[in-house]
């Protein structure tokens, strides 16, 4: 483990990606994630990598598609409106079963929205975003250290399952500085027999493709992909459980909302309310079983989000609506305070 240094979340992503063996970055400037591009622009030429400022988000994601097809670790990053533009390419990458990393440092929306932090791309990230039957592996960091760690994890998972991964952060996570220890990564060379690097006249040609004009073939391909998704759901769920052992109430929050909620949980405990926190680290796969188990233990949930309430649907589904789920939210770039979360916890405690 290296010494801890203070780093911005965005920079931690960039350096961690390089540590993970990513040598190809394509992006387009947009606040609040531009530090990633700036960092890559500085570092990549010095380590024989590619930094290219593309003509658009669409071009950037399609450059990613090309490199991913060749089987090299590759990434792009953007913020909400830019990630909307990338959806076409993301769908193709998913349809062609390629590994790649897409970073979304979210800002408020819809439309041009604002530049302040938000979590309102939860639906887009976890339910598809682009067209067709597919999922991304979606990781939600809640600290600068996790910005680094989950970037590395995302590359590994993406390679392992041939499923594109998304790091879903927000403006706060991107802009804040915290101590971070950048681990030395042992990048295992993974066999990618499907990659297009030239046949060397030694094998039949590989084709990177998402087109299946025969519906039975497309169905079969989708079934195969969903079998891999099932394995991911079985093996890769990550979450943090905080003060849940004796909890009678449960806050569910990810990313910055979870950080704020921790303050509220501690404050509520001081008032004698037995509340805990479940923080999904993988948003897809969602920690469904953990929430389901909690539903048998607690009297109710509070979903804390920087959106009009998106993850709350998954909390309700996972808990089979056994217990009430309240929403504590701010949106448009506003951030809920610990006091607001505490008030919602108290409301839940008073009514259940």
């Amino acid at each position, binding site marked *: 483990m290296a010494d801890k240094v203070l780093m911005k979340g965005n920079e931690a992503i960039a350096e961690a990606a390089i540590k993970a063996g990513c040598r190809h970055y394509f992006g387009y400037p947009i*606040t*609040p994630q531009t530090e990633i591009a700036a960092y890559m622009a500085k570092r990549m030429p010095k380590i024989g990598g590619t930094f290219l400022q593309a003509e658009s988000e669409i071009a950037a994601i399609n450059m990613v598609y090309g490199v991913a097809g060749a089987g090299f670790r590759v990434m792009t990053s953007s913020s909400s409106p830019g990630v909307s533009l990338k959806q076409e390419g993301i769908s193709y990458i998913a349809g062609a079963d390629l590994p790649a990393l897409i970073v979304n440092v979210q800002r408020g929306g819809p439309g041009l929205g604002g530049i302040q932090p938000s979590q309102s791309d939860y639906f887009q990230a976890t339910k598809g975003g682009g067209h067709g039957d597919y999922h991304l592996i979606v990781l939600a960091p809640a600290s600068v250290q996790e910005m680094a760690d989950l970037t590395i994890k995302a590359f590994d998972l993406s390679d392992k399952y041939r499923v594109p991964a998304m790091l879903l952060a927000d403006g706060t996570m991107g802009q*804040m500085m915290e101590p971070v220890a950048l681990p030395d990564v042992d990048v295992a060379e993974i066999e990618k027999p499907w990659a297009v690097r030239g046949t060397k006249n030694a094998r039949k040609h590989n084709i990177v493709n998402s087109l299946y004009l025969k519906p039975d073939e497309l169905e079969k391909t989708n079934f195969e992909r969903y079998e891999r998704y099932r394995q991911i759901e079985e093996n890769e769920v990550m979450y943090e459980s905080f003060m849940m052992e004796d909890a009678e109430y449960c806050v569910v929050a990810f990313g*910055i909302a979870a*950080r704020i909620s921790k*303050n509220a949980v*501690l404050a509520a405990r001081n008032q004698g309310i037995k509340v805990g926190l479940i923080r999904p680290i993988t948003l897809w796969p969602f920690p469904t079983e953990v929430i389901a188990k909690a539903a048998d233990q607690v009297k109710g949930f509070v979903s804390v989000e920087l959106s009009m309430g998106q993850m709350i649907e998954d909390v309700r589904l996972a808990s089979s609506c056994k217990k009430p789920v309240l929403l504590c939210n701010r949106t448009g770039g506003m951030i809920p305070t610990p006091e607001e979360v505490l008030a919602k916890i108290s409301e839940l405690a008073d009514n259940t």
Partner: protein
Amino acid sequence: MLSQILIAGFGGQGVLFAGKFIAYKGLYENKEVSWLPSYGPEMRGGTANCSVILSDAPVGSPIVSNPDILLVMNLPSLDKYENATVKGAKIIVDSTLIERKVVRDDVDAFYIPATRMANDAGIPTLANMIMVGKMIRETNAISFDDMENVLKKVVSAKHADLLEANLKALQTGYQYEG
């Protein structure tokens, strides 16, 4: 121990840098730290602020909405944040740029003409670090030792010539008794 520090002023006064220094000093003292800037257009000449948290326990929310230490370098910032501070908070005011006094009587206010002192000392861009020096004197958030080692972490190699000036600014603020 938990310090929730908010530093606010105009863009260009170096409030982000001041925060960064405090965060690094905290890290140097083996504290848990976070630093969160305001970002966006306000960085280009409007109001800027940053939240710094120093703690013995892992930092929860990195957002300081109720500071126990407030450094203000312009009037709009004092107007905006005075009432947000907690009871017993310490407010450091750059009295060159802010003519009014702190109104609340349940907080400790300290006035230092940081901008004028910086000009007088020939380091006109370092009023921010004079403010930090004063903060160290009046609070126990961080201690006044090994300043040079920490400065080396935050002053980029390109500006290494400014190391001495920063040190001077910190000392100037730290020694100010007013």
